[in-house]
């Protein structure tokens, strides 16, 4: 009986587990992040956002027309309509809830956004995401004028304002 009690006590000692607390962090742990920024508001001095995520199709007219095809194929028009917005926000201006840089739009499509924007990451190939990015930026007049959106069969809302 006594032996059993000692054994149990030893076992319970062994079973004790606490998380490690590293009181002296390594310098690498304090690395600064470079995010895809959604907001211009920053504490202190403004710092750069991610620059590595460049749209490979920036200013590419073919990508705009491919994006237009995919926009209707994947039923983006179901919520955003043909740029004018409805269930989802409009896409034909240059002020965007979650940012209008290619990296912002890429993130919106891949990760999804609250209140209804589905997350397409893993479901559609990356190349197509960038084509969609190029097309919706062209809708908002954010692509260079050489890559204007092609003529559409659907009723097309007209861009409300000129890009800044």
């Amino acid at each position: 009986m006594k032996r059993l009690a000692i054994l149990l006590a030893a076992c319970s000692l062994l079973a004790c587990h606490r998380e490690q607390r590293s009181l002296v962090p390594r310098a690498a742990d304090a690395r600064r992040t470079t995010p895809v920024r959604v907001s211009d508001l920053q504490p202190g001095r403004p710092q750069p956002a991610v620059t590595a995520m460049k749209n490979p199709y920036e200013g590419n007219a073919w990508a705009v027309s491919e994006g237009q095809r995919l926009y209707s194929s994947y039923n983006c028009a179901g919520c955003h309509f043909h740029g004018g917005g409805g269930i989802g926000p409009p896409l034909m201006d240059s002020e965007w809830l979650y940012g209008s840089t290619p990296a912002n739009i890429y993130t919106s499509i891949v990760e999804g956004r609250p209140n209804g924007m589905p997350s397409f990451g893993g479901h559609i190939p990356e190349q197509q995401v960038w084509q969609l990015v190029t097309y919706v930026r062209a809708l908002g007049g954010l692509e260079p004028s050489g890559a204007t959106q092609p003529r559409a069969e659907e009723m097309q809302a007209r861009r409300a304002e000129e890009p800044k």
Partner: protein
Amino acid sequence: MTLGLPGIQSTLHPAGPQAQRILDLFDVFLIVTTVVFVIVVVLTVAAVVKGRRRREAIGEDTRGMKLAVGTGAVLTIAALITLLVTSVATGRAVGTFGGGNPDQMEIVVTGHQWWWEVTYPDPQASNTVRTANEIHIPTGQPILLRLATRDVIHSLWIPRLHGKRDLIPGRINKIYIQADAPGVFRAQCAEFCGLQHAHMSLVVIAQTPGDFMQWKIHQQAPANDPATPQQAHGRELFLDLPCINCHAVTGTDAYATLGPDLTHVASRKTLAAGTLINNHGNLAGWVSNAAAIKPGAQMPPIPMNGPELQDLLAYLENLK
């Protein structure tokens, strides 16, 4: 494979009443224009020879001149009227063929860049058959084809059964075709529709009504379930990968209509709109990178390793 047969896509070998009428019209035109051509050549040669002999007599024989011009005008008008009348008669016969039957069998053919969607509508939606790049028809009866398009203008041309008819965005065109005997006829898009226009063909397979019904009942059945663990893994991959954004397989979560319906893909003779014969190697190449075979094709390459590709193929090849 029957696709290499001579005359499989020839207007000179009609296989139904519509194409026969068009060929008859062609024969009339050929005979009339050949006769006209021979007469013109003979008269021209005669005039040249005669003119050399009697150079000084030109311009004096006005009666002969009037007779010649008058005969020429009458013959020309007669020939043109003959062609006009036969042409209108053929047009009417081809245009009115097959109409007015309330029990008409209908097939919807939808053009896509760059393949053909073929739908057999049924009042009961679950009995609707969707296939691609193959039109199966029963012999001996007029079939109504409703022609639509999902993107640009295409044109359906089955030379052995009918003339061309365009597929226009926003509207439905109709033609009636009929095949008199079982056979395989090649058809081709006849309106330039983009990069892969030349590789946008299909086969029309005319079968006896009994064989056709057998085919249709088979096509109405849902897709085969995987029979082996490899096929089961292939189905998991299919449902997990971006395939289901565009393709449908009945009985699974895949129900998109942008690409060809794959429910019975292994039962088809060709892949990629008549471009490839449907076999293991061609299917592997097509799935791996379609645009390497048809540059511009809209199916994106999906990264997969070798065993995954083989599992996916095993699943697709079981969809008979």
